[in-house]
């Protein structure tokens, strides 16, 4: 097996296990209250972490580029109670235009 195929298979198997961990290994088992409390705050924490990595994440460094302008525009759109799609379009358009002007 070539090196590239080894990577494809190993990463595939690991990711399948990661994604299955909740539904297959925990399933509908009743969780202890403490763990339940964790699951409740997990969503906002993961979403916040994703916002940061997607907005300023780089290769082991923080990168401040047009994505931040897009995010700022998204904040304004959210304040104006724009629907989800509009928020994303505003962010993308802002970043795209800022890149054109650079």
């Amino acid at each position: 097996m070539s090196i590239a195929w080894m990577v494809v298979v190993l990463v595939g198997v690991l990711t399948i296990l990661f994604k299955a961990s909740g539904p297959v290994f925990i399933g509908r088992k009743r969780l202890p209250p403490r763990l339940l409390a964790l699951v409740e705050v997990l969503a906002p924490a993961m979403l916040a972490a994703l916002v940061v990595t997607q907005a300023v994440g780089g290769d082991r460094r923080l990168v401040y580029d047009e994505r931040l302008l897009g995010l700022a525009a998204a904040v304004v759109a959210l304040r104006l109670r724009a629907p989800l799609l509009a928020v994303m379009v505003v962010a993308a358009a802002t970043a795209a235009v800022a890149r054109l002007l650079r």
Partner: protein
Amino acid sequence: MKPVRFRDGVRAALPLALAPILFGASFGLLAGDAGMGRVGAIVMSATTFAGSAQFAAASILDSGGGAAAAVVAAALLNARYVPISVSVASIFPGSWWRRLLESQLIVDESWALAGRAGRFDHPVLVGAGLLFYVLWVSGTALGTVAGDLLDPNAIGLDAAFPALFLALLVPYLRSRRAVAAALAATVITFVLIPFTPAGVPVVAASVACLLGIRR
């Protein structure tokens, strides 16, 4: 209340449809350069189905980084799927093999869209995930033959994702605990990005939540 259906998930995901096609095509092109070949690229998209990890693995191989480095980087990036998957553990019905299959449709976007009502909806996750899956795999296939279709960043797609996750975060910020968790996660991710391999900051943010609720 109207029951939530599978097609509600497809509909919720439709506005994002361009992203998996364009990013999929970029991956297909990169994977070809990295020696995976057409079949390898498509198999990886069909089994791993996680953009950032696939890009990381392919670019490490492409730059001659070796198998171990590629696997470790991709595994770190995808480790966040353990807490993400745990957070939706109870919404999957049916036998274990059905849950195994459907759980593969968990990606950041399908998971985030499924939680938009303040609770996780299984039909939305599966509907959105399935649409992304089909587009991601076909986008990859397209990229292996046609190359890059259009630079996704030129139309600002990379800025649409933080906006998406932010928009989906806002409805959660009603309880003090949720606000505290989001703030802590923001700070931890921000601080760790320069010092740890990609993927670690997000996982660390979820582990910090675990420690936070032990008090």
